[in-house]
């Protein structure tokens, strides 16, 4: 059990030993191992992103189907589980249409850049004991900063499409994203106040020694989940993509593989938000019997399912209510939460 728990750490150690040996053989300085390990970690994160996108696309559609009293995709593969591969192949085979007057380099760049923020964020999240690619002392600050970047490719997409509705949609996304950063950050700050550290692995250790932070900070958890849903542009805050009231919203002019990139990047963004929620509130990789990284996967699975459940149940919120809800309800609530947390910590200390 200890072996399976540490299997990825051991694999990384093995690769590091192989690099050391190779570098020793070639006579190069051993400091290069760290540089090469960065490439290895990056490949691992890309694999995580791809696997999560593969799994969650089909899981969303099946769960949506069960909520709607129908089976969901069930043709491709056993019970429909190979659907994402079919989708990816279909999207790749589609014609790549770029509008004539669109800003072509930016149009492509936006689609490519959509994957960068989630990958950067996943680098810092601990999947298991010792399994954070970047074990930063300021891990939380880094992840918050990087997830803010996630709305920029959408704005670029809206601008580059040369379509006034896409532009309006893109501006709405940024509007929504920066507004909901505030309650998200304050909710996370309340957790930091209790745990006493910004280091994500240390926060998980804190929860292993004491209790899951969701019990101590339930309000912060709920507000974090709501803000994460708004950050990822999921329903009920899905104005940019579900803008069936205007046109297809920001991604109108994106077809084929370019759309696939945004589509998959959205699932990676959700995965980052779910991963952060697990690490900060649900105890991260801690849990009895099963290996740590398996607990992490299960907990993020639960949070992602909550995201999917909320998306397929609630109606869409109107544009002005999105901001009204954030600034008039969530921000005062988070400030109140921080005040109460601070007072209680002061009394207990």
């Amino acid at each position, binding site marked *: 059990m200890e072996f399976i728990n540490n299997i990825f750490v051991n694999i990384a150690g093995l690769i590091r030993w192989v690099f050391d040996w190779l570098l020793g053989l070639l006579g190069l300085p051993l400091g290069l191992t760290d540089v090469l390990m960065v490439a290895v970690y990056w490949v691992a994160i890309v694999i995580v992103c791809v696997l999560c996108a593969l799994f969650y696309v089909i899981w969303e559609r099946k769960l949506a189907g069960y909520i709607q009293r129908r089976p969901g995709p069930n043709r491709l593969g056993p019970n429909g589980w190979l659907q994402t591969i079919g989708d990816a192949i279909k999207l790749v085979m589609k014609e790549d249409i770029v509008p004539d007057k669109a800003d072509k380099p930016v149009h492509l760049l936006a689609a490519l850049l959509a994957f960068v923020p989630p990958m950067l964020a996943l680098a810092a999240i601990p999947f298991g004991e010792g399994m954070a690619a970047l074990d930063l002392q300021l891990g939380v600050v880094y992840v918050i900063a990087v997830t803010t970047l996630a709305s920029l490719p959408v704005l670029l997409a809206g601008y580059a499409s040369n379509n006034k509705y896409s532009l309006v949609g893109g501006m709405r996304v940024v509007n929504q994203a920066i507004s909901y950063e505030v309650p998200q950050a304050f909710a996370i700050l309340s957790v930091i106040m209790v745990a006493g550290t910004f280091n994500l692995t240390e926060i998980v250790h804190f929860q292993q020694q004491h209790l899951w932070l969701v019990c101590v900070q339930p309000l912060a958890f709920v507000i974090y989940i709501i803000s994460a849903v708004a950050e990822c542009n999921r329903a009920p805050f899905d104005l940019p993509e*579900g803008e069936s009231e205007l046109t297809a919203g920001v991604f109108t002019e994106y077809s084929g593989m370019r759309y696939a990139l945004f589509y998959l990047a959205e699932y990676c963004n959700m995965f980052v938000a779910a991963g952060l929620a697990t690490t900060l509130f649900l105890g991260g990789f801690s849990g009895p019997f099963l290996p740590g990284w398996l607990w992490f996967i299960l907990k993020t699975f639960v949070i992602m399912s909550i995201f999917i459940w909320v998306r397929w149940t609630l*109606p869409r919120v109107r544009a002005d209510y999105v901001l009204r809800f954030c600034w008039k309800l969530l921000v005062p609530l988070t400030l109140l939460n921080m005040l109460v947390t601070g007072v209680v910590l002061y009394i207990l200390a």
Partner: protein
Amino acid sequence: MTNENGRYSEVYQLNFGPQHPSTHGVLHMLVEMDGETCVGVDTKIGYLHRGMEKLLESRTYLQGLPYTDRLDYLAGVNNNLPYVLAVEKLLGVEVPVRANLLRMLTCEIMRLASYMVGIGIYIMDLGAVSGVFYPFQQREYALDCMSALCGARMTQSYIRYGGVQADINEEFDATMQKLFDEVPRFIEMYHKLIDENEIFLTRTKGIGVISAEDAMDYALTGPNLRASGVDYDLRRDAPYCLYDRFNIKVPVLTAGDCHARYMQRMLECEEILQLIKEIYAALQAEPAGEIMAKIPKVLKPAAGEAYAQTENPKGIMGCLVASEGKLNPLRVHFRRPSFDNIAIFEKIMPGHKVADLVSIIASFDIVLGEIDG
């Protein structure tokens, strides 16, 4: 165009449809927008015009009957009825009691089916896509009943001159039992799921308010009228067929906004189910008899004009038949409820945001087949 603040702003035109996921068909609205707010609406219809009234002139009366189903294609038999009633006025036939009860029964079942579509599509247009699957399941139960009785699910052409096409059978009894079991449970579940939902309430309360005077001025009919506080239901106030035998309870709401129109349909669903049960009981108590009166094989109604009105799920539908005593009618004209209902858009839509326009259109529960004819 300048603002009061001295800032320059322009009104731009936005095309809502005709290809649009939320306009209930091919409705084209040219909306003038000032930023996010609508300042003017120009509704353009005709994208589904099939020349139905003209077609009916070159068909015999019996050939023309299936065309009428396609007007409000969500409630097939309800459209047969005004045409048939008008022609029967010209023919001067008396329809047997059993046939009248069957007509009422099928009309009420399809009314329930049509309300299910209206409710489901409204929830879907607000963004909760899952909300369309459950009412459509109830519609399936209603369509199973119609399939067992009439042989067709959607466009039944069941109501014929002088009576109806077929009598009830055992399969129909089984499907009716299923309907009586499932629909009350669904209505209760939907009340629990939707009524208190915060997002639903903010998107429907206070949107598209129509006062009672406006509703009557613009010739609104059906649930849209009753949701604005006007207590008028043709089945109770000017009964046709045998509606005067039954106690028709008509819920009336006074708010006149989108929420009221939605709740009106939900409340009426319960009343319709109750009415279906009463008509079904009366039908079973009725001794077996004729379902069609004696009419000549070749229909040549007397020369003249006749007009008949019925309460359809969308409102009051009327049919004027002008006959010269020949095989084909001289002129047929339908008073379509959705056509008159959408005239009020120009009055109530300005001042609302884009998302509210979708909410307003969906709350009216229009059918383009009916509007364009």
